[in-house]
């Protein structure tokens, strides 16, 4: 009976789209802000961390190297101060001193020599043939003569091997030209101090002099051009006075590296720590990668949730709108039935009085016919038959108006606790005989533990009887099955009366509960039975519905509330 039209697809699609967009905006905004903040914070944190780490290493190693050089210089200075010129120029004594130094410090000192004021080496102890060597033109000699002590850059010199000179100038007490005690520092020993410094996978250290020349060995595959080394000094190699500098720069191959520079040897040398940026910031890249993966996974989850949510909401809206439409339809139906009830009550009252008068007048004629005057009339029997017919039809009219009123009246039926399965059994037993003649089988099926409900027993019996009689009438020619089920659906008892009859065409379904609407032949039905059922069930706070299809039978479904009997609805 209930055909609900709520399939307003464009509307639901718009609502669904708006919900999806709102959900995505609300969800994505904090996710993006959070991810952005995480990326920014991690970038700042890792930059600071890497910078601090490299700067710390640079400072530590600068101090170590400075201490190394100072110690070597102090070694030589001590020798020059504590040994006489004669002792030092005695080559056998000088060899012993070198041996002692090597025993004490390892192969740091590769040789020792005394150079007079003219640049001639007058005593030598070491593995090379440098006795009598002339250093008058060597840059280190000139520097050493003009300073009390001196540490040279690394150079090849006469021996053809990289080394640097530590020299102390002494002035004889008795006057004369000064002389120099010099020691060659083994390059390998010095280089180890620097080369052993490794940072991450690609970080290493090296030392440059003012001209940009490497003072230590470094990894050949990352060697920079001389110009780049010079640039590291800043302002054309005029010396570095800033304690530590940190910067990032691409080399000639385009690879970005981090550089930390620190001055050594009073700014004559520059300690450089170099590490490829990708290596230095590996942890940062990892963190950023995780953040991006989280963003992607979060986005996928949000989009999926949004789509599911919007679909669920759309389905819910659709269902609620359908329920609302159904409720509206029921309200309209109830209103229609209430109006019909009022109308029926009016008709019943207005018809009944004239019918009563007609019946009484007919009765009066009957009374008069009893007199002797009419006893001989040829038509007496016909008069009596006609009067009886008037009386019969009058009583029929009364019955019809009574039915109308029972549909329309404000019921004062007494309610009691009724066990619905027992009640149905009673009604079925009353109909059994009739069913047998009509070749109809009635089957019942009840759910376990059906609760007793507070209803008018006679009214429910009337409803059940009506539905069973209708089903039997529908199957009078063919016979068939009436299946009666009673079950519990949350707080309602559901009674279904299904038949295997010919079914009801859809055009009739919408009017089936209207008073006087009948498909039975004239004189066979008043069209009030289902109207009365409708009125009774509605007054009980329940509802009655019908489903039917031609050729597939008809099912009436009654929902009755299990709670206390609801207040009677006025107007029905």
């Amino acid at each position, binding site marked *: 009976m209930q055909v609900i039209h709520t399939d307003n697809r464009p509307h639901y699609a718009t609502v669904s789209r708006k919900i999806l967009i709102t959900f995505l905006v609300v969800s994505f905004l904090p996710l993006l802000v959070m991810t952005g903040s995480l990326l920014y914070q991690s970038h700042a944190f890792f930059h600071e961390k890497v910078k601090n780490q490299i700067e710390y290493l640079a400072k530590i190693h600068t101090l170590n190297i400075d201490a190394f050089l100072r110690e070597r210089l102090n070694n030589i200075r001590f020798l020059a101060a504590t040994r006489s010129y004669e002792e030092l120029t005695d080559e056998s004594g000088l060899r012993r001193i070198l041996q002692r130094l090597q025993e004490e410090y390892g192969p740091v000192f590769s040789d020792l020599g005394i150079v007079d004021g003219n640049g001639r080496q007058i005593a030598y102890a070491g593995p090379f043939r440098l006795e009598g060597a002339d250093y008058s033109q060597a840059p280190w000699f000139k520097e050493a003569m003009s300073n009390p002590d001196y540490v040279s850059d690394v150079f090849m010199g006469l021996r053809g091997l990289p080394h640097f000179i530590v020299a102390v100038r002494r002035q004889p007490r008795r006057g004369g030209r000064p002389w120099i005690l010099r020691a060659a520092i083994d390059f390998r020993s010095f280089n180890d101090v620097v080369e052993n410094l490794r940072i991450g996978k690609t970080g290493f250290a090296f030392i440059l002099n003012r001209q940009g020349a490497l003072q230590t060995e470094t990894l050949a595959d990352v060697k920079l051009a001389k110009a780049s080394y010079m640039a590291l000094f800043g302002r054309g190699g005029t010396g570095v006075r800033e304690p530590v500098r940190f910067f990032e720069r691409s080399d000639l191959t385009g690879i970005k590296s981090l550089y930390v520079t620190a001055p050594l040897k009073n700014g004559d040398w520059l300690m450089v720590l170099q590490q490829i940026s990708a290596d230095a910031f590996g942890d940062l890249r990892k963190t950023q990668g995780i953040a991006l993966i989280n963003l992607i996974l979060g986005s996928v989850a949000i989009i999926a949730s949004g789509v599911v949510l919007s679909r669920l909401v759309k389905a819910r809206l659709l269902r609620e709108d359908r329920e609302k439409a159904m409720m509206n339809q029921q309200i309209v139906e109830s209103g229609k039935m209430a109006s019909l009830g009022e109308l029926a009550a009016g008709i019943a009252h207005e018809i009944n009085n004239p019918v009563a008068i007609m019946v009484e007048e007919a009765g009066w004629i009957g*009374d008069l016919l009893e007199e002797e005057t009419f006893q001989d009339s040829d038509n007496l029997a016909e008069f009596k038959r006609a009067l009886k017919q008037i009386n019969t039809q009058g009583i029929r009219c009364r019955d019809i108006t009574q039915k109308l009123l029972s549909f329309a009246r404000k019921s004062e039926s007494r309610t009691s606790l009724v066990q619905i399965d027992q009640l149905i059994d009673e009604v079925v037993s009353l109909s059994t005989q009739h069913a047998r003649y009509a070749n109809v089988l009635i089957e019942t099926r009840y759910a376990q533990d059906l609760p007793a409900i507070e209803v008018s027993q006679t009214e429910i019996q009337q409803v059940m009887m009506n539905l069973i009689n209708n089903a039997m009438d529908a199957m009078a020619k063919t016979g068939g099955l009436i299946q009666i089920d009673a079950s519990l659906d949350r707080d309602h008892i559901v009674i279904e009366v299904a038949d295997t009859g010919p079914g009801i065409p859809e055009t009739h379904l919408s009017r089936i509960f209207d008073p006087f609407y009948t498909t039975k032949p004239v004189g066979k039905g008043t069209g009030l039975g289902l109207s009365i059922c409708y009125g009774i069930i509605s007054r009980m706070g329940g509802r009655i519905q019908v489903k039917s299809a031609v050729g597939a039978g008809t099912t009436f479904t009654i929902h009755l509330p299990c709670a206390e009997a609801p207040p009677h609805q006025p107007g029905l």
Partner: protein
Amino acid sequence: MSKATVLLIDDETAFLEAMKRRLERREFHVETATGGMQGLELIEACGNRIEVVVLDVKMPGMDGIETLCEIKRKFPLVEVIMLTGHATVDSAIEGMKRGAFDYLMKPADIDGFTAKVLAAAEKRQAQEQKIVEARMKAITHRRA
């Protein structure tokens, strides 16, 4: 001598006339009134003669239930049968609660109608008899 004196109260005069004729033919004495007020006046005017009142429930002005209450208040011995064109259970029960003897539905079968009127008249007479006996007993008791 009539079987009983009946007062019919109904706003439908055609119905009153038909019923009056039929009841009189069956040897009842019948008075008629077209409203509750008129009926009450008639009962008063007839003294103690009205035994049974057949009263329509739905009437303009003073309706059947109100009239019943007034009759029972002023003339408690008069038996009332409610007559209704729309036999609702509640109006019938309402009438019975307020002291009506029984109720009938329109159109009524004349034999059923007269049977109920006679039963009401007998009840009325039995009550009168009880009252007379009670009075006699009281007088006898006083003399003793």
